[in-house]
């Protein structure tokens, strides 16, 4: 029986390195054989206090394929939540109807709080700008699948490294696997010092760049994120830097054969569409991997693996 049985997944640091690997191994099994009715006696609650169609469908598809029944809401409109019920009371109530709660809520820290109130395990499907650990798990899965390993890789993170929560989580997770980090961002959107400290504390190296072209020849993974105009107080500044973090097919000359491009999606224009047909594009498969990883997490947490 897995050490993950009955556990919550709120923040990526809740799991150990070995537990990440365990989840990835189980996910691999579900990728080969996704329809296994091993949760047919379970009820999974998906509570989306803000809409996120992509994430909700991925979780619900995962639960469905395992035979679980699903209850919940896709946005709080028309529910008791909108009538002013506290998160505390909603969670206590839903705990009595379900075996596992998947929650997305714009309030930061809401998932940790829910896990302390709930009598069943809670999976965080995003708590505002704070954490979205299942995204990180599917990023790890995609990295391992494309590289054959998580160890000793050159990971380039590109775009908004300051506010991008997926970036912070992935850096923290990859600190367990002897990665070298190549950080490409406008100077205004550099990785926060607390995250750089995690890299240093793990005894690993990072390099900072402002031009994406510099990391093309060394990267095993290029993890692209969107640079939002709203992040810049001065629109002129945005205009000046916006092209420095855009990836086009012609820039990929001289990259490693094994290099793959990831993106948490949705993309806007930071990866031009001519990249999609290159062998390096992996972002659409990456999203599909989310279903297997979420199947693995639900199965392990509910003791079916």
């Amino acid at each position, binding site marked *: 029986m897995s050490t993950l049985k009955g556990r919550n997944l709120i*923040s990526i640091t809740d799991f150990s390195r070995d537990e990440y690997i365990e989840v990835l191994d189980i996910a691999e099994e579900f990728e080969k054989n996704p329809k296994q009715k091993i949760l047919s006696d379970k009820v999974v609650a998906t509570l989306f206090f803000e809409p996120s169609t992509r994430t909700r469908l991925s979780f619900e598809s995962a639960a469905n394929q395992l035979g679980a029944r699903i209850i919940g809401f896709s946005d709080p409109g028309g529910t008791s939540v909108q009538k002013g019920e*506290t*998160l*505390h009371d909603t969670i206590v109530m839903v705990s009595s109807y379900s075996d596992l709660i998947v929650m997305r*809520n*714009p*309030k*930061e*820290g*809401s998932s*940790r*709080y829910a896990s302390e109130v709930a009598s069943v395990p809670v999976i965080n499907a995003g*708590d*505002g*700008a*704070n*954490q979205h650990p299942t995204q990180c798990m599917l990023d790890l899965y995609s990295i391992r699948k494309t590289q054959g390993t998580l160890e000793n890789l050159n990971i380039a993170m590109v775009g908004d490294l300051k506010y991008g929560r997926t970036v912070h989580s992935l850096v923290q997770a990859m600190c367990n696997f002897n990665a070298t980090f190549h950080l490409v961002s406008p100077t205004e959107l550099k990785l926060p010092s*607390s995250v750089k400290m995690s890299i240093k504390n793990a005894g690993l190296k990072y390099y900072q760049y402002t031009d994406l072209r510099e990391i093309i020849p060394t990267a095993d993974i290029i993890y692209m994120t969107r640079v939002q105009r709203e992040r810049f107080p001065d629109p002129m500044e945005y205009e000046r830097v916006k092209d420095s973090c855009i990836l086009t097919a012609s820039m990929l000359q001289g990259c490693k054969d094994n290099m793959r491009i990831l993106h948490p999606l949705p993309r806007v224009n930071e990866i031009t569409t001519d990249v999609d047909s290159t062998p390096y594009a992996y972002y659409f498969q990456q999203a599909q991997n989310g279903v297997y990883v979420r199947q693995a997490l639900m199965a392990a947490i509910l003791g079916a693996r």
Partner: protein
Amino acid sequence: MDNKKEILVSAIDNGTVIDHVPTDSLYQVIRILGLERYNDEVLMGNYLASGKLGRKGIVKIRNKHFSVDEVNKIALVAPFASIIDIEDYKVVRKYQAEIPDHIDNCVRCANPKCITNAEVVPTRFDVVDKENLKLRCHYCEKFTTKETMKFTE
């Protein structure tokens, strides 16, 4: 000097004296210790002459003995405060307030989007840097610092 102090804030027979409180922190100390709702004698003095601080505050709480964890919270605003336990007019214990590793309840999270600011959730923090006073919220994982620190009512 000691005589002068006695005149300004009289001695207590039993309880706790909190000495060497910075003058601008006295009322925060009172709030952190919940003394606004304490139903026995509380004696306070502020801007008293002190060799150590120039001017200082002092609080005497009659018939109250704090646990170390309870009283250590005041180190957030009064890092050099001395805590003196008094029994029968005698000093039975004297120690310095020390910033604890965890702080529950008394500080508000500086992140306006934090769940603890949206619902009635008691705050919990890990102290990640005692020297520069940096707290990490157990819930939203954001930092609250000396500059952004506010205390719960």
